[in-house]
């Protein structure tokens, strides 16, 4: 087939498809055509008296008019009974309309006979209501057929006797032009109105297909997707997994009711947030951000996200997405445990004694917690929780620190269920760490680590023939902790805290000789001492702006010092901050109804529940830390002096009997130690 043939074939098909409507007749089209056919028949019948009148006026026979009309209407009347296809019937009516036109022209003989021909053109235009080009074409062909037949019957009549050919051509041209125009109108009428139902049907099918596809997606997606109205009403379509998570979820159910079965608090917050969104007194983003984003579903945790759905710029619904993040959380927890494990190992190598002390004290606190009624915590227990939090944070056990903080919050809020829940989580969390590190801890606890240089020095001393007690003291020191190392740890901790609090990292100066302590005696103190350092950073040193305004360097300065002076072991923490705000502290104590407010304000500083802070953060503000320090200090027979000058700084001075650094049972003859030139002159090594 040549290209021309192909084009011709395509053009022919296009024309035929344009003229002949699709075979299927939609119910709407069927109904419409039946209605129009009936009306058109009535219209033609109503013309009979008019035709008779025309005949009367033109003296062409009234009865002839009646007879001719009845003959013409015979077809439509019979056709109405036997033709069931309304399209076919409309074609018959179109043909009849042209016959009626012929009759009218015949009856209207006279000066107006030419004008009677308008009937054909008018009827052709009216036939456009059928929205079927075939009706128009059949009507046109009927008229053309009359002329052609006349030509065959009287070949000489049409073009003879000087009847100009161009008149006939113009006549035909008008008819053709109108037919083309009406065919166009009819087809457009069909495509855009009558056949619209078919188009809608097609679109509906496509939509159904899309819905099926969407249903497939919703049935197989692992996320829970649902849309809710601003009243919380759940729409019909939601992903299948929601039915698994929330049994009995049905269309029209309220999301609050569905969620309430698992977590009443979350349901309450969902309700409150939806109310806030409806009231529209807050920015939508803010309201959405305040909606709960987590829901516990048995052992699983669902993350909830919300997206607004607008119709015509009006918020109508919310898309709620539930994602099961249980596995992710477990993975995160495992990763965190791993990180914490690494951190602990690292800390153990930095300061073995401190590490072991932390573990030992942690065990004690956990043991105490396990045996206590957490819903009625004592002041001591609160201090211990606070201490565990601080030390856990320092040793990188953020999970424990976080649980301690949650427990503190629960205690403060007085929510018993939350207390028990967090308490259980804390015990479990600690146990997991113990389990994980059991081998490592066992190894650490039954061994002593000695630096190579220390061992070499010892060997040298032996070779030099040093006194046995001196050698014993040196070996004994391997079991003890280094105060300097401790202070270095606190220095590091203060830097990390400053970063966390978004303050310039302070300059920390350490002043310390080589002093050792017995971890079994001092762990409690060092654990609580962390609060003093943290207070210096958090409360003592001002913000960068405040410092600059006060004419100070932007970075703060902290001095950590430890020394043996006469018979005292003195530890001092000094900062160049804003000083203690005694008035504020006093006012707080008054508010709490504490005694000795006027007489000894320093005492207030170390009382339980007193803090210069108005709000609680995860580092300070509960008024527990300083009370713990005071408690541990007095346990070791120590005393505390506080020196504070407004805008210049604060100094805490802790004084202990020198002999309390190690246990009495492990004391070596002091005279020998003091007489030993090795310790006094070279090493400045102190023992009680």
């Amino acid at each position, binding site marked *: 087939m040549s290209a021309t043939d192909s084009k011709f074939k395509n053009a022919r098909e296009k024309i035929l498809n344009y003229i002949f409507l699709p075979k299927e007749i939609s119910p709407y089209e069927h109904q419409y055509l039946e209605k129009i056919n009936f009306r058109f028949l009535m219209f033609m019948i109503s013309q009979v008296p008019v035709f008779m009148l025309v005949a009367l006026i033109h003296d062409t026979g009234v009865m002839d008019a009646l007879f001719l009309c009845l003959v013409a209407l015979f077809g439509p009347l019979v056709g109405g009974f036997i033709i069931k296809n309304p399209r076919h019937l409309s074609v018959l009516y179109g043909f009849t309309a042209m016959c009626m036109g012929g009759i009218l022209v015949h009856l209207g003989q006279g000066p107006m006979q*030419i004008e009677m021909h308008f009937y054909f053109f008018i009827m052709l235009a009216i036939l456009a209501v059928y929205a079927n080009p075939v009706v128009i074409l059949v009507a046109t062909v*009927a008229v053309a057929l009359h002329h052609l037949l006349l030509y065959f019957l*009287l070949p000489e009549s049409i073009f003879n006797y000087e009847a100009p050919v161009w008149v006939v051509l113009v006549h035909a041209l008008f008819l053709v032009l109108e037919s083309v125009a009406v065919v166009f109108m009819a087809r457009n009428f069909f495509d855009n109105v009558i056949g619209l139902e078919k188009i809608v049907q097609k679109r509906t099918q496509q939509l159904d297909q899309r819905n099926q596809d969407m249903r497939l997606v919703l049935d197989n997606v692992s996320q829970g997707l649902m849309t809710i109205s601003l009243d919380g009403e759940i729409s019909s379509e939601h992903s299948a997994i929601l039915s698994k998570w929330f049994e009995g979820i049905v269309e029209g159910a309220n999301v609050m009711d569905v969620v309430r079965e698992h977590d009443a608090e979350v349901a309450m917050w969902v309700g409150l947030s939806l109310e806030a969104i409806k009231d529209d007194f807050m920015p939508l983003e803010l309201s959405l951000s305040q909606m709960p984003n987590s829901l516990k579903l048995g052992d699983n945790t669902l993350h909830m996200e919300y997206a607004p759905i607008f119709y015509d710029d009006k918020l109508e619904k919310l898309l709620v997405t539930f994602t099961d993040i249980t596995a992710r959380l477990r993975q995160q927890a495992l990763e965190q445990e791993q990180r914490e494990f690494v951190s602990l190992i690292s800390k153990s190598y930095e300061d073995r004694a401190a590490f072991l002390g932390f573990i030992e004290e942690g065990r004690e606190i956990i043991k105490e917690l396990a045996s206590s009624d957490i819903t009625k915590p004592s002041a001591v227990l609160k201090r211990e929780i606070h201490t565990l939090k601080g030390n856990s944070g320092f040793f990188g056990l953020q999970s424990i620190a976080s649980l301690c903080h949650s427990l503190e919050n629960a205690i403060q809020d007085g929510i018993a269920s939350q207390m028990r829940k967090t308490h259980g989580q804390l015990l479990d969390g600690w146990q997991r760490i113990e389990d994980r590190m059991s081998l490592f801890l066992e190894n650490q606890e039954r061994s002593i680590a000695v630096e190579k240089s220390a061992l070499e020095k010892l060997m040298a001393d032996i070779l030099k023939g040093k006194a046995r007690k001196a050698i014993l003291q040196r070996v004994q020191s391997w079991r003890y902790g280094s105060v300097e190392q401790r202070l270095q740890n606190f220095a590091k901790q203060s830097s990390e805290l400053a970063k966390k609090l978004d303050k310039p990292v302070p300059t920390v100066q350490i002043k310390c000789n080589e002093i050792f302590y017995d971890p079994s005696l001092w762990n409690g103190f060092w654990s609580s001492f962390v609060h003093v350092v943290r207070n210096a950073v958090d409360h003592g040193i001002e913000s960068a702006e405040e410092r600059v305004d006060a004419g100070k360097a932007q970075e703060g300065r902290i001095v950590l010092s430890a020394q043996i002076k006469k018979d005292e072991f003195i530890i001092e923490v000094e900062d160049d901050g804003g000083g203690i705000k005694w008035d504020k502290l006093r006012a707080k104590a008054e508010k709490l109804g504490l005694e000795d407010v006027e007489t000894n304000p320093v005492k207030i500083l170390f009382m339980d529940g007193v803090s210069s802070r108005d709000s609680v953060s995860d580092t300070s503000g509960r008024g527990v830390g300083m009370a713990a320090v005071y408690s541990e200090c007095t346990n070791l027979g120590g005393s505390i002096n506080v020196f504070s000058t407004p805008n210049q700084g604060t100094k805490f001075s802790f004084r202990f009997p020198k002999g309390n650094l190690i246990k009495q049972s492990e004391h070596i003859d002091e005279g020998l130690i003091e007489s030993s030139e090795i310790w006094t002159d070279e090493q400045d090594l102190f023992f009680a």
Partner: protein
Amino acid sequence: MRHTINATKWFKSTPSKAVMYTVLGAWAIFMTLICTIMMGKHSIPLPMPELSSEEVAHALGEHREEMQEPTWMMTHVFLSTCPCSKRLADYLVDKARPSHVEEHIILIGDDPQWRKQATAKGFKVHVVTHEELDQHYHIKAAPLLIIMDENDKIMYSGGYTSRKQGLDIQDISILSQLQTDDSAMHALPLFGCAVSRQLQKTVDPTGLF
């Protein structure tokens, strides 16, 4: 998809329906023919005598009255049952006619009342039959206007109006033009009714109209 219909099988399976469709088909054909005939009857120009027809000129010349000085002669041929003829006949008796012209009316089929009016108006009315018109006057259709000069030469043979049943009846203007120009003019078409039986049979084979 192409569908084929076995007509024989269809007719046998639904006889009553087939009969009805056959009737409907016959009706459609009948209506087509009827419309064609009606159109043919009224829309086509009918034949008229040639200017050179001596037979016609002679037959019409027989109507001339003895006069000292011969004048132009107008002959109107009307069919009493033809609406077009009736309209023109009424026109003749209602309007003023030119002087110094002989006017004759050949009426096929009598209409006494109208004949009386026409006679009173000064027309010479000749009532003839279809056969006489065809055989004696050799005229086959009406309404026809024939104008002859003083020498019985047919100067005009044709219709009265330029279009079918036109309002502008041009008989007097045609006469005036012929009398001043002295040459035959282009004939207007003859729209009307066949008078001769042969022409009637040709135009309306059914004989209904």
